[in-house]
């Protein structure tokens, strides 16, 4: 099986750029990825790109060929949609294409334009990731669903809003130096606790923002790296995906995310590593409670033990295993269909040593990314390792 190398990564600044189309965002991210990779765009054999709400936000379906045009590549192009895990799924398909020997160079990533819609319209658009019959029509909002998970977690295992506020504060602090982050500003635990309630027990600062942005990765086979003598020290050594019932009510235990456990188990086995080998992780913290569920599913903590990790300082930048050094979705931003690619771009920079927060993990060799869709009915986990 052909190893998959990350030749280059590119991101747009995450934030509010309502006038920029999804294709403009992706074109910018792709430009940066090609420059970083030192690979000519004419070498690209496939495009695998995530996008979630382009049909709603831009009246644009069939994004594959639109984004191929924008990136200046002539190849088969497919848009993948798995809600907030869209780009993670797209990257996974790129990895599979290279491993299978179908392609040596694949452009992967994602794009999302959101802020051209007002907040109620975005809320409506995001709701379609849930079960239309048994959740949306029943009044279950996306924050409301995560709130039900948070309340169930508190009831089953303990923990409280202060634990969650420490996660928000940590991720904002991590984003301070990240030039791509939407919010480069600190929030204190007290500020997070004082924020208006969205869906109890989750307040405004427990939620990620609405974000425009794009991510792009130039993924290549190892033989391509050797043939062209590329500097590509990061390898995607593991990839896994898991699925679950779409509606939260149909799950056995709503304070756990077994789809992510399945994805992680597969990715670890693929890479030949275990959770104890992981030095650093980027996880899908669309809400603060989601980070807790993620680090438990990734095997870093037993169920019920993850809630206090940030408060205890174990997942902070100087902790034993930093989580979301990019700022996470919470502070870096969450352009839904781009996030899975962004996580891999950030992890690549962290491991290569060219991320502003790389100094916190100078010896790190194994990193993990965790991308989740809906209330984790879809989950994708990747393991990245660096040559040192």
């Amino acid at each position, binding site marked *: 099986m052909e190893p998959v190398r990350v030749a280059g990564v590119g991101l747009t600044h995450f934030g509010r750029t309502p006038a920029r189309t999804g294709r403009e965002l992706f074109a910018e991210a792709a430009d940066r990825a090609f420059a970083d990779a030192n690979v000519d765009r004419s070498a690209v054999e496939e495009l695998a790109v995530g996008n979630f709400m382009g049909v709603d936000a831009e009246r644009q379906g069939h994004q594959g060929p639109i984004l191929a045009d924008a990136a200046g590549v002539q190849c088969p192009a497919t848009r993948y949609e798995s809600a907030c895990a869209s780009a993670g799924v797209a990257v996974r398909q790129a990895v599979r294409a290279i491993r299978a020997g179908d392609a040596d160079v694949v452009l992967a990533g994602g794009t999302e334009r959101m802020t051209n819609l007002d907040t*109620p*319209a975005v*809320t*409506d658009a995001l*709701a379609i990731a849930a079960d239309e*019959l*048994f*959740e*949306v*029509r*029943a*009044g*279950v*909002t996306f*924050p*409301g669903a995560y*709130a*039900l*998970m*948070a*309340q*169930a977690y508190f*009831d089953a295992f303990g923990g409280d809003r202060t634990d969650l506020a420490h996660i928000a504060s940590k991720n904002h602090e991590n984003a301070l130096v990240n030039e791509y982050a939407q919010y480069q500003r600190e929030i204190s635990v007290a500020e997070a606790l004082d924020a*208006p*309630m*969205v*869906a*109890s*027990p*989750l307040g405004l600062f427990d939620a990620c923002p609405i974000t425009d942005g794009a991510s792009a990765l130039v993924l290549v086979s190892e033989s391509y790296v050797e043939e062209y003598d590329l500097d590509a020290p990061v390898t995607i050594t593991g990839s896994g995906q898991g699925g679950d*019932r779409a*509606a*939260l*009510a*149909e799950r056995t235990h*709503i304070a756990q995310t077994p789809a992510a456990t399945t994805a992680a188990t597969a990715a670890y086995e693929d890479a030949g590593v275990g959770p104890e080998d992981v030095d650093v992780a980027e996880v899908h913290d669309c809400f603060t409670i989601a980070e807790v569920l993620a680090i438990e599913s990734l095997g870093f903590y037993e169920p019920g033990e993850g809630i206090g990790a940030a408060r205890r300082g174990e997942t902070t930048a100087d902790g034993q295993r930093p989580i979301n050094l990019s700022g996470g979705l919470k502070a870096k931003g969450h352009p839904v269909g781009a996030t899975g690619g962004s996580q891999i771009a950030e992890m690549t920079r962290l491991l290569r040593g060219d991320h502003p927060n790389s100094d916190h993990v100078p010896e790190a060799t194994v990193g993990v990314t965790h991308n989740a869709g809906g209330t984790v009915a879809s989950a994708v986990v990747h393991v990245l390792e660096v040559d040192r």
Partner: protein
Amino acid sequence: MTDDRDSADETAWSSEHGSYEEWLDAIANGEGYYLESPAGYGSLPPRRVCPHTGSPALTHKPLPESGVIVSVSVVHVAAPGFADDVPYATAMIDFGPVRVSGIVRGRDPVAVKTGQQVRIGVETRETTDDRLVVFRPVEDS
């Protein structure tokens, strides 16, 4: 692109276990039900097969009269279709073989707690005339 299915066939397979709308009708008439597969798994319509086992042998079972709240949240920011309903208590109710999500009414939203017993019914939203799964505390009925 044409639809060649004749209408008789369509009726046959859409009505076997009921549509979502028919399920709401049944609840409104006090005849709420769920579907049970031979392995004992419960599910809600529309279904052609059991989502756990793939078995097509689904039987209709009466939904228990009351269920227990397994999680609840007071929603302050809702989708546009529920704008006039806020704040409301969104809750997940365990009926044993199935769990159902909906809004708890008949009690101050902040007083709705995990473990309380509720009955299922069908009402309409405050914001629109759309029908909605609503739960009310058992002691109020």
